[in-house]
């Protein structure tokens, strides 16, 4: 199956359980994590996850909604954006 790659960006304060809770939610929704990387930037904890959404059969809005809810509970901002927007912005 052709991959549908998106980035999940997590911005906020470092705390226990970020990776565990987000990856748990993704696992439940049949979303595969392809790569993961994190760093402290401008005082923020930033994690970028490259995920394959091709196994996710529900409307994309639902996953963003669930991640947003989790983000609110953990005081994190979580963004889901298709890989193409990063290709457009950062690669000529």
């Amino acid at each position, binding site marked *: 199956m052709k991959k549908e790659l998106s*980035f999940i*960006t997590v*911005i906020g304060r470092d705390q226990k359980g970020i990776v565990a809770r987000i990856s748990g939610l993704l696992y439940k929704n049949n979303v595969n994590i392809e*790569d993961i*990387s*994190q*760093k402290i*930037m401008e005082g*923020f904890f*930033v*994690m*970028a996850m*490259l995920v394959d959404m091709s196994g996710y059969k529900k*409307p*994309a*809005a639902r996953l*963003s909604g669930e991640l947003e809810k989790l983000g609110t509970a953990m005081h994190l*901002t979580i*963004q*889901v*954006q*298709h*890989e*193409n*927007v*990063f290709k*457009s*912005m*950062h690669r000529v």
Partner: protein
Amino acid sequence: MAFTVEEVFETASMVVHQNLDIRTTTLAINLRDCVHSDFNRFRQRVYDKVLTCGRSLIREAAALEQKYGIPIVNKRIAVTPVSLLMDSHCTRAKFLQMADTLDRAAQKAGIDFIGGFGGLCQKKVTRSVATLLDCLPDALARTRTVCSFLNVGTTTTGMNLDAVNLVGPMLKMTARKTKRAAGCARFVVFVNAPEDNPFMAGAFCGVGEPDVALNIGISGPGVVRSVIEKNRECDLTEVSEMIKRTVFKITRAGELIGRELAKRMHVPFGIVDISLASTTKYGDSVANAIEALGIESIGAHGSTLAVALLMDAVKKGGAMASSLVGGLSGTFIPVSEDAGMVRAVQRGSLGLDKLEALTAVCSVGLDMVAVPGSTPAETLNAIIADELAVGIINNKTTAVRILPIPNTRPGSVVSLGGLLGTAVVMPVKKWSAKKFMRRGGRLPAPVTSLRN
């Protein structure tokens, strides 16, 4: 990973922290195929076409917002200038019915604004345009989404002062008929109006445009301000480079979304308008971007250079990123809609004179400017004519959106609501140009050589 965390963070934080969004997606549709000798059938065809196109735009835009995580703030429709459609139905009552039809279709589809209820009269006011202008105060008062424009000049034809002279009285009437003069915010008078402009109030589907095309406008004053603030020690060359790089990125993202949206709707992609467009939201202000360059308050001496620097860099970055740049592609400095501009007017650093000067180097015109309701119609006409002369002579688009708010004085603060923001009433000069304006006629087309 194909991208570094820094790159991913930069993109995400443009949306999360710096208010990056697609300000408008505007579907331009030609309504000439709807014209019919039976006026009811004509209106029905217009209604059906606007509704079908509008629904498709709303549906597909929502899907892309989710996919790319970038908000698409406004979904709009621009139609063929209505005065061109109504030549054989040229009565006041029919124009009002047509305004109602456009408004109903737009509201039913969920469209924010529908533009094009206007006309082109750079040489002479046609019967159709005159009828439209005559009923415009009522049309603006009874509709919610209909936007209107008038193009009264071009650099190749000169400026039609007779047409300008019709605008002031029309605006004063509109101000009386709509709450807090807000109807005037849906009318803009232009010279050199672009046919593919996606921004309201002046969007219309020009006569040289395809049957249908999707035009988009990206917004990023917050992103630009942020990059300026991070580079406080840079000289002008370096800061210009930083702005160019940033605008390149946001324009690429906008073009990606615009092209995909057009593809999903099975319509051609028109243009990307690379204007910086501010909103009332904190941090989403062009004035703040200028102030971040080191101007204490916009309007101070030095502001003209700062606007010139900013906009030249924005245009260069945007033009590199997209081959289909069009529309207005200047910066908007709408006074009431930009919190930084409102503060500058209140402090006294910005007045009509400096605003007019700023428009000479780049911006699109006097936008969302409030003046006392007692301002004589001739003075309104003169303010408009002055601004439009800047456009005619400099071979650029200029426009005026001005609100003569009844029962106000210079310094009065009027909340216009929503995206229209807060108007601080600006003083106008008490000396009259009545005799000059009453001469009427047409300003001849200027020479385009001898440029000093």
